[in-house]
């Protein structure tokens, strides 16, 4: 504790002046301690902005913030960064984020999708952060959970993302306790329960007045650390990599452990003011160049020498992680990060570096935050920015380039809200912007019960 306080003090003195500009962005809906988190670990800079373990509840736009493209956007981007910091805080709260370079994170104690929607449709184990994800198993090689490589009848719909070492990127989806409880209490974890549930599915909403958190889901993408990767630039963990057998394709059941580094992080937050959810998306800074702005650096998913012929195009079939020496994906970010967002990235990076110059978290950047501008106007609530893509999660639907010009296509080019608006449960009814309910299985009664 002492050490932490000392750091706080140092930071407050050291960076107080540098970050006044961040303060001017405003900081709405600052939560008090969420209960279990210790406020002692906060790092403040003259009360302007903080690195805090406290997860924000919602965004309330300040009456003085009237310009959508800059001011209001900044409110949401700040919410995203605060969420990122809080979610990547050490789960036991004993140290400041990145104080030791890297750290275990809060979101990695949340329930993984596969822990909620069990293969037999039975009731999931109760929430227990100490047990969840004890052993991280990464199976998903596509963005959506149906892409499990379980058998040949389950096609990849979007295609895998292959890094410069020919390794498949792995994905996982986790949810917080609020979201889990809603699924658990309403028996939405199996087909039959979803059929029976005739109310409108509405996950709990984050609420600033009530100081309540809502449902939050996190989608993460990981790359296997290998040749050319500077491991000091990634949040890392050891994970069990599992490839299910596909005998017809000669894919053998394979399991091994590997050091994996976080390359992408989506945070979806349901809130009172933003019933279409707030969608925050972060990436590791080395992922991919921005269109027409390639730098002479090592990218995770781009190689200058490979040219742009196969840019943002899924690899050739078959998509099989076991085949050695596969051609890497050639990914380019089509939409540059907005300058205001980039300024906030720089500000938070400095703040993180002030904690520890070797912090891995300085290598993550906010790509954008999408929210419904007119939440009540329509089903999608007029999302802004209109299009948003994480280059590791929506690699192949970022827009089309025609004669050097980028076109974004309504209803097709990546928009978090635009796509998730179509999500349904197995009943065909809307599922409140998450596709996860469709990973539920049908409940099969145990053989013993059946005889009765």
């Amino acid at each position, binding site marked *: 504790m002492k050490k932490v306080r000392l750091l706080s003090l140092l930071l407050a003195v050291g960076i107080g002046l540098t970050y006044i500009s961040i303060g001017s962005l405003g900081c709405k809906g600052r939560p008090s301690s969420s209960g279990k988190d210790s406020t002692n670990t906060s790092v403040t800079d003259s009360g302007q902005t903080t690195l805090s373990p406290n997860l924000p509840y919602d965004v309330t736009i300040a009456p003085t913030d009237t310009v959508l493209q800059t001011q209001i956007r900044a409110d949401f981007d700040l919410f995203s960064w605060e969420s990122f910091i809080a979610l990547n805080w050490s789960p036991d709260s004993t140290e400041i984020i990145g104080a030791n370079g890297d750290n275990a994170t809060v979101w990695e104690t949340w329930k993984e999708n596969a822990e909620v929607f069990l293969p037999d449709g039975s009731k999931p184990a109760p929430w227990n952060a100490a047990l969840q994800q004890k052993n991280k198993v990464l199976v998903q090689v596509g963005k*959506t959970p*149906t*892409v499990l490589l379980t058998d*040949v*009848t*389950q*096609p*990849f*719909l*979007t*295609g895998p993302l292959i890094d410069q070492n020919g390794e498949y990127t792995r994905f996982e989806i986790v949810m917080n306790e609020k979201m889990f409880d809603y699924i658990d209490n309403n028996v939405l974890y199996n*087909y039959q329960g979803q059929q029976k549930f005739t109310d409108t599915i509405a996950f709990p909403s984050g609420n600033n007045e009530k100081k309540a958190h809502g449902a939050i889901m996190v989608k993460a993408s990981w790359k296997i650390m290998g040749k050319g990767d500077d491991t000091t630039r990634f949040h890392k963990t050891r994970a069990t990599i599992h490839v299910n057998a596909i005998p*017809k*394709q*000669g894919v053998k059941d394979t399991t091994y452990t590997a050091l994996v580094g976080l390359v992408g992080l989506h945070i979806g937050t349901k809130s009172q003011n933003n019933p279409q959810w707030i969608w925050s998306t972060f990436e590791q800074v080395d992922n991919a160049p921005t269109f027409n702005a390639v730098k002479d650096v090592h990218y995770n998913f781009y190689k200058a020498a490979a040219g742009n012929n196969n840019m*943002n*195009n*899924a690899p*050739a*079939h*078959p*998509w*099989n992680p076991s085949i050695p020496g596969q051609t890497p994906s050639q990914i380019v970010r089509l939409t540059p990060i907005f300058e205001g967002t980039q300024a906030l990235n720089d500000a938070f990076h400095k703040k993180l570096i002030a904690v520890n110059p070797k912090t891995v978290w300085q290598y993550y950047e906010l790509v954008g935050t999408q929210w419904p501008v007119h939440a009540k106007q329509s089903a999608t609530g007029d999302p802004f920015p209109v299009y948003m893509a994480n280059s590791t999660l929506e690699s*192949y*639907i970022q*827009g*089309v380039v*025609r004669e050097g010009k980028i*076109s974004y*296509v*309504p*209803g*097709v*080019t990546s928009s978090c809200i635009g796509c998730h608006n*179509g*999500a*349904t449960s*197995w*009943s*065909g009814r809307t599922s409140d912007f998450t596709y996860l309910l*469709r990973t539920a*299985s*049908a409940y*099969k009664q145990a053989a013993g019960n059946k005889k009765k």
Partner: protein
Amino acid sequence: MSNTAKQYDVIIVGGGWAGSAMAYRLGEAGKKVLILEGGIPLQSNNREDFMETFFLAMAKTPEAPYVQNYNSPRPSVLDIKQITHPPAPSVDCAHVAESIDTDGYFIQKGPMPFGSTYERLAGGTSWHWLGTCLRLVPNDFKMYTEYGVGVDWPITYDDLSDYYDQAELEIGVSADVEEQTVHGITFSEDYVYPMKRIPPSVLDQILTTELKDVVIDGNVLTVTGTPAGRNGESNIMKDGTIYNNGRRLCQGNTNCTPICPIQAKYDATITLSKALETGNVDIMYQTVASNIQIDATTKEVTGIDYIQYETRTGPATGKGTVTGTKYVIAAHAIEAAKLLLMSNKQISTGIANSSGQVGKNLMDHPVKLSWGSMPKPVYPFRGPLSTSGIETTRDGSFRSERAAYRIEIGNEGWNWPTGAPYTQVQNYVGKMGLMGTALRQQIITDFTKQFRLGFLVEQMPSEENYIIPSPTCSDNLGLPRPEIHYNLDEYTRAGFKAAAEATGIIFEALDATEDNSTPLGTGGFFQYDGENYYSEGAGHVMGTHRMGNDPATSVTDADLKCWDHDNLYLVGCGSFPTTATANPTLTMMALAFKSADALLKSLA
């Protein structure tokens, strides 16, 4: 591309629907397959690209999303015009691009123009199919025996029933079993469609109620949900698992044709991807089959010659020959017939043509559109293009006299017949001078009540309806364009007359007012019994390499193997001996699976 050196079990010409289905089955079974696809490659951004083109197109035709490719050209509905006699193209077809842009890809010789179109790219015409997955009724397979017209199929409904199951699973069909048992259609025990019936539109519900006691030619006009290859609510399958194809549920974009923006509608790229995913299937894109080689002694096919290109307008950039043990032509009814007939260097009549039937019996489901206004709002332009239809009219003793029809209920107002909403808004503003609230009021009053029915009329095989490779006009690769000779016979025209009479009865029952203006597409104009009719293309191109029991009158056997060449299979709607009235795709895929089974057996 140096795939040519590799030895394949099967060469498939065409990466469309039937070709993908064959490739998937064969690849799954461990056979080495090569697909030659004439069109552009399957890429991640295809749908974005096509949607952008669609959004920017002034005419939202079925072809609108897909840019013309002069090295693998396709017809467009905008080219369907009445034919002058003798036919006089406005541009010399030596100027390939200009000629195709102006007069269309087809060389239409008439007397009526052939009204249907298709696409030539990976996934084929499935990119703009409607999604209808009706089974044929048992009598459709025996038109000659039952009604003394046309010919019988070499198979019965029962022969195809299991393959229908397979096709419905692969496509992912949403329908209700009980509703589909029309005119003797049966299902295997405990059968469930992968998904439940797509919810009916507001219009469907009104028609269901208002027409339930109306009888035409002995058939009650029962409105039923149309089986659809689009995603609905999943069923639990026989094995206890939930049907799940991983794609989104339909969001009612009302755009199945020309393109579903969210791929809630099945298209053949899904099966093509699965075929490639087996690891046993290779594909060569922008590779157009130009000739089928045969061994003069054994009559077996020995190779397929191809031509390659780099850009849609550029020159040929490569050529070669691919070889395999077996060969499948799955190039679309018109293109397949064209390829067989233009492969005439070794046999002057072309390949597989000892019967003389290749390219003959070209058929469609000529459509009679009927449209009007309901007394109450029915709210068009919402939901899939069509969610329900009337299937009871598809069979009856009248079929010995006149063509049967099915009735498709459209959810897109007057879009098809009149180009709504564009033409009307131009009328309101341009001619009537409406603006502001008055304009909005007019739109609400008129548009919300508009609806249309489509009568898909059956057509009988005829040697007078045929396609041959044009002796004078070529595409940009120098390959002949299809020359088409086409007409509607007395039987089909009588079907139109019956459809017009049914329109009167239905509209009266609905208390609806028919709009009698001339439709947008006037190419299919004809007169019958003193009345004017307009026939529209359904996109259901059938009959050019029909199957049968007799080598003298058919091109293939019931396994779609050529009578003339033991290692050559012809799959696709060209196999259909008669058209029946159901949209043909489901039957085509079922036949492709049947053929794949036979082909596999022959390789074993």
